[in-house]
């Protein structure tokens, strides 16, 4: 985990850029997570201060949305779709395979810090289930073998 002091200027810069935007809290949180990879808990006070909100309100918003995270993710984030369409095409077997292969559960990061595993409920790729994303890239008709290949490619980066 990085020291917040080195991240603080980034946070303040993002806050500054969104100062006059109506309904700016989600865009600010996205900005921070896009830049730092997560929303450092220590940033909550700065966000609350800039938006004239309580820390509880800001924390409440961060914790409400599945996408926002308050710990650093692995180098790559793998999201596996758990929704009905993917289930109809053996998505559950893929989910179990992924957990075994990476030796982690959902919301965890591998010990070497290379992969974080997250569930997702629909990627809109239901015509080619089961689907996963690795970072921002979506992959369809993913079999356990294809999953291993994709991760091997990413792991080598």
């Amino acid at each position: 985990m990085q020291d917040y002091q080195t991240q603080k200027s980034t946070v303040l810069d993002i806050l500054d850029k969104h100062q006059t935007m109506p309904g700016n809290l989600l865009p600010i949180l996205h900005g921070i997570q896009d830049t730092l990879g997560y929303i450092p808990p220590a940033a909550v006070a700065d966000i609350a201060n800039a938006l004239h909100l309580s820390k509880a309100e800001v924390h409440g918003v961060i914790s409400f949305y599945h996408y926002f995270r308050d710990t650093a993710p692995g180098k790559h984030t793998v999201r596996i779709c758990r929704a009905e369409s993917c289930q109809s095409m053996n998505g559950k077997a893929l989910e179990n395979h992924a957990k075994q292969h990476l030796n982690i559960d959902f919301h965890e990061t591998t010990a070497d810090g290379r992969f974080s595993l997250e569930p997702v409920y629909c990627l809109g790729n239901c015509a080619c289930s089961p689907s996963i994303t690795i970072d921002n890239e979506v992959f369809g008709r993913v079999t356990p073998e294809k999953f291993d290949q994709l991760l091997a490619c990413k792991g080598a980066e």
Partner: protein
Amino acid sequence: MTRLFISRDSTALSLGAEQVVTAIQQQAAAKGQSVEIVRNGSRGLFWLEPLVEVETSEGRVAYGPVEVSDVASLLEAGALEGKQHPLYLGNIEELPYFKNQDRLTFARVGLTDPVNINDYIANDGYRGLKNALNLQPAEIVKQVTDSGLRGRGGAAFPTGIKWNTVLNAPAEQKYIVCNADEGDSGTFSDRMIMEGDPFVLIEGMTIAGLAVGATQGYIYLRVEYPHAQIALNQAIAAAYANGYLGDNIQNSGKTFNLEVRMGAGAYICGEETSLLESLEGKRGLVRFKPPLPAIVGLFGKPTIVNNVISLASVPVILDKGGDFYRDYGMGRSRGTLPLQLAGNIKHPGLFEAAFGMTLRELLYEYGGGSASGRPIRAVQVGGPLGAYVHEGQFDTPLDYEAFAAISAVLGHGGIVVHDETVNMADMARYAMEFCVEESCGKCTPCRIGSTRGVEVIDRIVDGVEKDKNTVLLRDLCNTMTYGSLCAMGGMTPFPVLSALNHFPEDFGLKSKA
């Protein structure tokens, strides 16, 4: 120079379209052949993606599904001149799957470069807006009312009535909000429009703004759709640069500004009041209704909240008239519905058709049956909050009222197919589990009822006091249906009870006689 078309649609990309583009560019260059590759939207015949279309003097010739390993043989066979090859499909528009559709909303998807405004205008784009600029606001609303268009997000509320309420709500500031939080499994039509023809959505929102006097629009887009975000932002920038958005639209003196806002992975934000809370920067807690968002909406102002497909259907209505659109369909379901075939189906894809075709026709004639080759056992129509439909109900026409009559939901026309290996008690449990995961927590029936629902289903499946617990599950579903604040808790009983009623044997209960 040969022009090729290879889609930039997420599903095409998920199957390797980008790698096919690179391979063709490199191998054609090595052969000294010059190609221009247009990145279009998808035609929606997803079992054929990645699809490569070649422009020839006789029209477009398609090949698919193309893998990188096919590129060498395609070029060798003369695919750039439209010649024969094992992957040759001919003109994609002549395939029955495409030919028998009624593509009104999806008229341009797959034809053009989605972010090229000149392509859009050359293919009948902005004709609806041009007409709207010459009409009084009430006349625009009347066209939409006359069309019979109902909310395509699932609730099927008449769009014209909603617009009329906002038109008649006096306020200095009003808003147009597009609900692009397409979170239901089995749906991808919103995504396909946003990636494949974003201008049609922008035009529809602009017309909505003119119709009710709103000068600011927001597209609330789910974060799972990064490619849609890119396409929308490119198209919005082009619309501003060409005077189709901003302070003086086509020198009319009218103003409409538009911005994309990203959600953050909360399914409940597809519920309109939760979405408004989220846009305001809050937790996505559902609001009490009344007041309706049309009266007290975003930042407390009158607001139209419409789904992507509803708004994207407005340009053709304003171009060709409400009557033209209303002439498609059956009963009170007017116009067309972009159906989405997904899950365990041989020919998955987007099928835009007038209301009225039967589910069976879609599943077998076009869908080709299950992908696994096993019999289709259950079909969930209308998303995770829609009922499971069994074989005996497949002759129901795709019509809002016909589905309601069998205690099912047509909704947005998302269709997820399950073959005979599905365990329906598992699917019922999952429906409750999903509600636990995604409930906003504001009302008790949804927040706690869903957790109790998982437990009760587990007890039934484990054989603990089966009959008593079945009565309890039905009672719980009744409380959720009538006591929940919104459709999340209120409709979770649809998949649960339909699974229980149609497939009791999966719960270890006696089959129906």
